[in-house]
């Protein structure tokens, strides 16, 4: 189907199903129960899952395939956001032109940075991209404030020109009138599920991006990129100049980042400079490695994992914990709360750091490898593994399968 083999089609279908039913799947607990804290099925977080999924998918095309570790990808995200907000300020609140512009501008920006940075490889390349991104961040925060609105972030205001919008056009990002923040909530017993326009738009775009990335992975171009990662020397002695390939991968992944930035701004019309900081670039790297670099679905898992922690664990406070463990005898309750408290709420960074370490130590191939191991347990080893999989996974170089 769609030019994919059976396995890929199945994977695409599974991801599609997950995206479509996410509002239900992510809200497994009744809204009023104490476990509702762990529900992630509200529009903003679901949007972030898929948007950062797009970002990570794009990053993976560069890092997972070519092995070039960019530490400045957040710059493209930021540039995409700024372009989108400007489009919404000047032309129209319709998100289509905004998203298109953000992809184009991020693409151009990545041609520039990629062309220069790709003159070097390895850590020298990483530091060059980092330097460009940090420059962008520092300038956006201060000197470029007329364009970026600095610390506060670029916002839409009531008196923006918006020359294409009529007087009655919605004052919120919309798709031909359907506002991104519109949502319908379905109550079912104690459960409530929110279906939002913005989320489904992001979801569709994410599925398209995911499909595109499968096609790239399975194309001769994708194979060339993997060959670049594997052995540049041999590429050179096969008559291939690797630079156009790496630059193309860089620009594609930059455009993915721009798309993610444009979507972020479309869901929530504000572009903050922090999006370009090195920590944001580092976050993309972490998402990709955590999920499984070079695998198709890994980056999406990684993105979901980190965003879940950032948004769910940071909101657990002492009172929440006390409510959970209220069934315990008072002394024991306090003890349990005291044990858990440092790891949630303001300590969510600690949990995240520990999980990074645990995943890298025990699952060198990232979360995808964890999934594979679980799947293996269920398969009962009735089929013999044919290829040299264990050998490659040990080295953290997963063939791009799942």
């Amino acid at each position, binding site marked *: 189907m769609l030019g994919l083999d059976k396995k890929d089609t199945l994977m695409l279908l599974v991801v599609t199903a997950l995206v479509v039913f996410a509002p239900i799947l992510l809200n497994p607990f009744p809204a009023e129960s104490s476990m509702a804290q762990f529900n992630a099925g509200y529009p903003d977080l679901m949007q972030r899952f898929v948007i950062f999924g797009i970002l990570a998918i794009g990053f993976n095309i560069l890092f997972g395939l070519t092995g070039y570790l960019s530490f400045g990808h957040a710059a493209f995200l930021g540039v995409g956001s700024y372009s989108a907000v400007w489009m919404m300020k000047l032309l129209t609140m319709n998100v289509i032109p905004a998203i298109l512009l953000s992809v184009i501008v991020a693409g151009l920006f990545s041609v520039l940075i990629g062309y*220069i940075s790709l003159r070097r490889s390895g*850590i*020298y390349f990483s530091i060059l991209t980092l*330097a460009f991104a940090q420059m962008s961040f520092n300038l956006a925060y201060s*000197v470029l404030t007329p364009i970026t609105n600095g610390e506060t972030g670029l916002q839409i205001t009531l008196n923006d020109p918006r020359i294409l919008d009529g007087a009655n056009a919605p004052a919120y990002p919309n798709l031909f009138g359907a506002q991104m923040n519109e949502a319908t909530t379905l109550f079912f017993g104690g459960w409530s599920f929110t279906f939002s326009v913005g989320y489904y738009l992001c979801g569709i775009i994410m599925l398209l991006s995911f499909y595109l990335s499968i096609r790239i992975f399975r194309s001769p171009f994708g194979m060339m990129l993997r060959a670049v990662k594997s052995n540049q020397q041999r590429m050179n002695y096969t008559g291939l100049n690797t630079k156009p390939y790496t630059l193309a991968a860089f620009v594609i992944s930059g455009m993915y980042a721009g798309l993610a930035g444009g979507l972020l701004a479309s869901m929530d019309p504000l572009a903050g400079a922090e999006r370009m900081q090195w920590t944001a670039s580092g976050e993309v790297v972490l998402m990709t490695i955590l999920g499984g670099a070079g695998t198709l679905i890994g980056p999406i898992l990684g993105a979901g994992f980190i965003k879940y922690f950032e948004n769910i664990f940071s909101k657990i406070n002492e009172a929440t914990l006390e409510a959970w463990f209220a069934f315990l005898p008072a002394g024991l309750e306090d003890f349990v709360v005291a044990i858990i408290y440092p790891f949630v709420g303001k300590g969510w960074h600690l949990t995240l750091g520990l999980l990074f370490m645990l*995943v890298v130590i025990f699952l060198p191939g990232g979360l995808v490898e964890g999934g594979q191991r679980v799947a293996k347990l269920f398969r009962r080893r009735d089929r013999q593994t044919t290829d040299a999989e264990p050998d490659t996974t040990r080295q953290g170089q997963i063939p791009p399968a799942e």
Partner: protein
Amino acid sequence: MDAILLQLLNGLDKGSAYALIALGLTLIFGTLGVVNFAHGAIFMIGSFCAVTLSKIFALSHKAAEPSGKDFLGNPKYDDVLYITEWFGDDIGNWMIDWSVPLAILFAIPIMLFIGYVMERGLIKHFYKRPHADQILVTFGLAIVLQEVIKYFYGANPIPTSSPEALRGSFDFGVLIGFDPDVIIYPVWRLVYFTFSTLIIGAVFAFLQFTTFGMVVRAGMADRETVGLLGINIDKRFTIMFGIAAAVAGLAGVMYAPINSPNYHMGMDFLVLSFVVVVVGGMGSLPGAVLAGFLLGIVESFASMNEIKAIIPGIDQIIIYVVAIVILLTRPRGLMGRKGVMEE
């Protein structure tokens, strides 16, 4: 002229901090081939060794008799320091005053131990893993370390002062023929600069003139061959990791009075120290030191008003501009070797 000289001093001072951190990072990278994102955290822990020692010196018990009322109007009891009780007022107060320099002695064993534990417990298992994994695990470790510090010390900076005698400023200009009051420089920063230079010198001397250092240097150049000679290079590298941690830790201890330590100061230095190391050339110790001083000085000059007037905001990006220019003109940084970290 005096302005330039002042900025040169500032540059050397900043540069010495950069160089010290980068030196440790390069030692770890050059010997073990590990990209250590937790190095900034080690620097931070060094600073907190100074904080901890002054807290230990400040341990006290309540006086028997109340001396007044506290902010809620309850009786207030004065604190009596154990240290003055045990050693007498003179020595006790002297120790409190000199707690930062004393923290050097306190920090060396702690940092060596932390380095040793880190290497044996964690880093060791990552020698053969891709650099991306090393980055992820050490970054995770850095977060954990700083969160632990935050848990115990809070997020606020903690003021840590230098000894009374080394506080304040010193008229440096008079020494070199300027009018009085023109080139005034903080005493502690001069101490820091001297200290850093000594440590850098000591590390180089150690590598240059001891058998241990020779083996390590040979190992940095070609690990396999040295291994073939039947020398247990791994053990030496473990010790090197401890030394690198100690170097970063000492840089942190002495830095405490310059800027009040806080839990995320490691992250503030992390990016910068990587830029320094890479600009110097991966795996090159002299390169790291050179780049540290170079970037420190360039940064200081870029923040001069005369230069900011020409290019506004240049001080925000100068480090990165210099890094880009150097990496584009010298493919492996200032003194990098071929083939290191280029894949």
